[in-house]
């Protein structure tokens, strides 16, 4: 019958609305369900997973030595010219010339964190750091030299 159908329609409509309101009402009263974090305040307690790809860095040991041989594998692996390896020739103790890096220039502004350089590196000289707050006021600050000044290659890395 028309009237019965009409009333049923109105009833089911109102019911569906109330079900939705019950759901939002539940979250309104249950503050434990809140999932957002207060980001800049929780900075020191924040833990990023160790695989997080933040930026490429070159670890140095306490004697200011790194593992980079200057083989340019990373430069070749990089899809968008983020890494530039500038090499020089060191004279070793025996008087031999040995290829070493002068500078490993890293353009953070071009980097897409694709991790291809890291897996290409044969001597594990570069790794991904877990930093992510990269914004600066001047773009030129994003161009970094990864090896420390006066750093040397570690013993035994070929």
């Amino acid at each position, binding site marked *: 019958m028309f009237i019965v159908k009409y009333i049923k329609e109105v009833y*089911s*409509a109102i019911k*569906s*609305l109330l*079900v*939705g309101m*019950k*759901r*939002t009402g539940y979250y309104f009263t249950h503050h434990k369900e809140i*999932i957002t974090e207060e980001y800049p305040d929780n900075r020191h307690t924040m833990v*990023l*997973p160790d*695989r*997080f*790809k933040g930026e490429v860095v070159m670890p140095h040991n306490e004697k200011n030595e790194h593992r980079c041989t200057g083989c340019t594998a990373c430069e070749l*692996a*990089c*899809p968008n010219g983020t890494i530039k390896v500038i090499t020089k020739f060191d004279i070793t103790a025996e008087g031999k010339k040995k290829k070493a890096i002068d500078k490993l220039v890293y353009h953070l502004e071009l980097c*897409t*964190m*694709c*991790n*291809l350089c890291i*897996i290409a590196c044969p001597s594990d000289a570069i790794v*991904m750091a877990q930093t992510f707050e990269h914004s600066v006021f001047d773009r030129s600050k994003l161009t970094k030299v990864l090896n420390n000044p006066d750093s040397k290659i570690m013993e035994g890395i070929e």
Partner: protein
Amino acid sequence: MTEEIGTTADGDLIINVGPQHPATHGVLHLVITLNGETIKKVEPHLGYIHRSIEKMCESLTYRQFSYVTSRMDYLSSHINNHACALIVEKGLQVEVPARAKYVRVILDELTRIASHELWWGAMAMDLGAFTPFFHAFRERESINDIMEETCGARLTMNYIVPGGLMQDIHPNFQKRVKDFISLYKSKIDEYDELVTGNIIFQNRMKGVGFISAEDAISFGMSGPAARGSGVNCDIRKLYPYGIYNQVQFDQVLETAGDSFARYMVRIREMKQSVSIIEQLIDNIPEGEFLAKTKVVLKLPKGEFYTRVETARGELGVYIVSEGATTPYRIKFRSPGFSNLSALDTMARGSKLGDLVAMMGTLDLVIPDIDR
């Protein structure tokens, strides 16, 4: 251009929806001819985020080009990478280790859930309900956390490389995926309470944006948008890749062809994805995660085509190789581009408010359309 700022000769109003508009989720530009509130014509203008990925890939090696595809359909970046890896493996005839295959499919399905999750929230927001967006992000964030832990990134992973995976899965991976599934199962009914069952929502969706199965095929539509019209087009079933032939799942089909059907396809598809993950997560075989490949990859001369099912539909990668280290020509057949072309046919005669429902259920991702 003068036409676009005024009215037509018939006195119809022409309005520009986009490139900056709250409902276009990006930089889609639609020029709409309106008679009152009724849509007479919709004309997409594309290219605001065209980066010519196809041209870029011509100068990238086979190891490098897949990271670019993460930026195409960024919501299913993992599946795009999978397609790129598949085509290189096909060309080189590399056998991928079983472990990698399992993980790839699990991650594909997680990506699909994450993408549908975002779609659900964004579409509800288009229709004026803001709250579902945040509820959807709760679940999506836990997927992103899993991705972050294993792949090292939340959105543009680049975790799949030709031959397998870039790294082995994280030791916590299986546990966290299982945690996610139990969380997800406890929350999925809330979606129905909040949105699906809502009378206002149903009225906004039912009978809106109808497209017939013939038209859907003719427009080259694919994915959930076409399955809402009853087109049998799930690449995972038709042309199985990875280990999709070993898992049990249903191809979700709805026959109504309207926005609500497309909506229900995606909602049901999320549940199917969960069941796929459940079947695989405990059975990931031990062993290698990366097959041995040469350092420099060279595809043999010839043409290669792979199709995968992304969250939006069929992604085709077509490579013409001249035997060099870079592809000679590469074409990405993106699902969004074809799906968008059907929008005009769908929208004619409906109200302006329906347009957002249609765009919502087509699940357009603009970088995927423009490439």
